[in-house]
């Protein structure tokens, strides 16, 4: 990314974004207090949301829902319509932001092609389970975040346990597990100094949509591809009971088709006491992928399903590590021309924006006592998201501050763009170094970290031993 590109990107929010977010914030405030007792201000905010989507296919259900809510009736149909209206607004915000980003970076993106026929209307799996989710989500909406206490949080436990056992509902299960853990840790919510208002409304609304007919497919179309995958970096996602490593890379399809930007993900369930470099051991069933990350090699893949969303469904036995490949070289040579994938309509939300970019030729400044790093790129400031440096990798705020080049993801949250580092080139002890998030995928390489790990013991092994002894008696 160049200074002029950053200037284009950061030149105020695209038109309409602020207005759309205000409407979203109106609904989110209602969820703080509970939708069962809407004050006049809340009712007005919901009416404004209904007005905004009036000309769309959502106009009627949302309008109807807002009327009924104002009259004090809170039922599933109304909550679903509200969640849908909110998702549509945030989808529009997403599109405006991605459009701005693509224009600034001159990135070409494949258009979304609506699948020819809607997926066959099979009865949703485990409808009673989905019903259980909806009823918990309804209770949350009625009560409002401020009223959430231990009892309401615990009420989700049984449904959650059953959801987790259902492979077709993994996304909903992972989402609800994350939300309920945050609520549990925040109980009683009434005593919290401040609330994650946007975040909890996001999670609630997403869960409402996913609990209609279960997880929707990540990409309706999937076709096999073969070729060479050059990793750019790995983005790690985690909450108490799950970890996902999502690799961003450039795929050079066999047969000479144009290179594309793709993502490939591997995820595993965990518990909250498994943290840091031990996370990689949970993903150990994908040794070829982890090996390529740790050793910085390209991968030859054969017939992996590629979804319309640009997600490559990983199958470790259909890949093999090939020659060394430096992600910075990949970014310099291949990133600008690679074709970016479209985003499926239901997944359009600003939080999902994670566009790989290479930033260099900046000066890094530390502020706030080391808590913030800003890159100055030709007079334009780009904030670095230091919160997103995972404990399972070697990147530190200090390395970012000392860096001269950064491979990262452009992210948008809370009204601005930020850079999430995936790798840096820096000078440490007067020698040039390159440090990547995935460097420890086969185990930590820093002797100090190896020692600390040994001291803490092998959490995965301890818990597996306990499980083996206690679970099946």
């Amino acid at each position, binding site marked *: 990314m160049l200074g002029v590109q950053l200037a284009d990107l950061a030149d105020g929010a695209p038109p309409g974004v602020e207005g759309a977010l205000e409407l979203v*914030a109106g609904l989110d405030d209602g969820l703080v207090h509970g939708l069962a007792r809407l004050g006049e201000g809340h009712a007005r905010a919901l009416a404004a949301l209904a007005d905004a989507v009036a000309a769309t296919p959502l106009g009627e259900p949302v309008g109807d829902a807002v009327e009924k809510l104002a009259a004090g009736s809170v039922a599933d149909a109304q909550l679903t319509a509200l969640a849908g209206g909110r998702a549509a607004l945030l989808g529009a915000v997403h599109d405006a932001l991605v459009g701005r980003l693509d224009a600034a970076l001159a990135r070409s993106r494949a258009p979304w092609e609506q699948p020819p026929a809607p997926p066959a209307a099979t009865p949703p799996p485990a409808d009673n389970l989905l019903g259980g989710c909806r009823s918990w989500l309804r209770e949350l909406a009625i009560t409002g975040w401020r009223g959430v206490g231990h009892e309401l949080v615990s009420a989700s436990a049984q449904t959650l346990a059953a959801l987790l056992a259902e492979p077709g509902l*993994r996304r909903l299960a*992972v*989402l609800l597990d994350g939300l309920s853990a*945050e609520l*549990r*840790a*925040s109980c009683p919510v009434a005593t919290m100094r*401040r609330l*994650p*208002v*946007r*975040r909890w409304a996001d*999670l609630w609304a*997403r869960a409402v949509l996913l609990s209609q007919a279960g997880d929707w497919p990540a990409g309706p179309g999937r076709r096999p591809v073969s070729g060479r995958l050059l990793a750019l970096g790995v983005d*790690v*996602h*985690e*909450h*108490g009971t*799950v*970890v996902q490593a999502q690799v961003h890379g450039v795929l050079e399809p066999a047969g000479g088709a144009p290179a594309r930007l793709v993502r*490939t*993900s*591997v*995820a*595993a369930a*965990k518990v909250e*006491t498994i*943290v840091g470099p031990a*996370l990689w051991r949970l*993903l150990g069933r994908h040794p070829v992928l982890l090996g390529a990350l740790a050793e910085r090699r390209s991968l030859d893949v054969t017939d992996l399903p590629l979804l319309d*969303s640009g*997600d490559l*469904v*990983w*199958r470790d036995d259909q890949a093999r590590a090939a020659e060394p490949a430096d992600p910075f070289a990949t970014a310099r040579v291949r990133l600008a021309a690679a074709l970016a994938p479209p985003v499926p309509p239901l997944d359009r*939300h600003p939080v999902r924006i994670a566009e790989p970019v290479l930033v260099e030729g900046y000066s890094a400044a530390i502020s*706030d006592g080391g808590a*913030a790093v800003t890159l100055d790129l030709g007079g334009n400031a780009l*904030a670095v998201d*230091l*919160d*997103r*440096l*995972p*404990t399972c990798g070697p990147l530190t705020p200090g390395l970012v501050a000392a860096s001269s080049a950064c491979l990262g993801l452009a992210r948008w*949250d*809370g*009204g*601005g763009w930020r850079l999430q580092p995936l790798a840096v080139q820096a000078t440490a002890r007067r020698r040039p170094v390159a440090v990547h998030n995935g460097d420890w995928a086969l185990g930590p390489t820093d002797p100090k970290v190896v020692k600390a790990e040994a001291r*803490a*013991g092998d959490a995965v092994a*301890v*818990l*597996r031993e*306990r*499980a083996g*002894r*206690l679970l099946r008696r």
Partner: protein
Amino acid sequence: MDADGTRWEHRSAARVVPPARPRNLARVPFVELADGRLQGVVSSGSDIRRVYVSSITAGTHAYHCSTNNNRPCGGLRGSPCGHLQALAAEAAVQYGADRVARYLQIDLGDGASSGADLPGRLHGRHEPAPAALVFSRFLRHLAYLELPDTTEPIAELHWFPATGAAG
């Protein structure tokens, strides 16, 4: 306002729960702050098949310790046993002593910051509590490790970035 001028309340990926800090799980494989209690499971030092279920109630600081089959712990003689001490100490490592003290409503006063100080500041009494609920939560906890992996993308996890450990 955050350092970069964005409001935490308006952030989709705002961090709400600090990640657990690494700790050795050998003695106390399971600790949680839930249902109004600090509760957990302590492995017996002498019998690898036996575990103790220990809990301390928030506010009243009533404590209990028994085997998972509800046999009372022999170490409870008018004061918290070694299992309860270990539970409090490991909870302080995992969550930080401040968070544990806040949850249990213990006044840490000045200077107290390690889990070893926590039991001395509890002034509750022994009150039997059923072990079954906590033990079944522990089993559910262990069952996560048996869930199959997935390589289908989980888009929802963009709301859950891996973050640096607290402090």
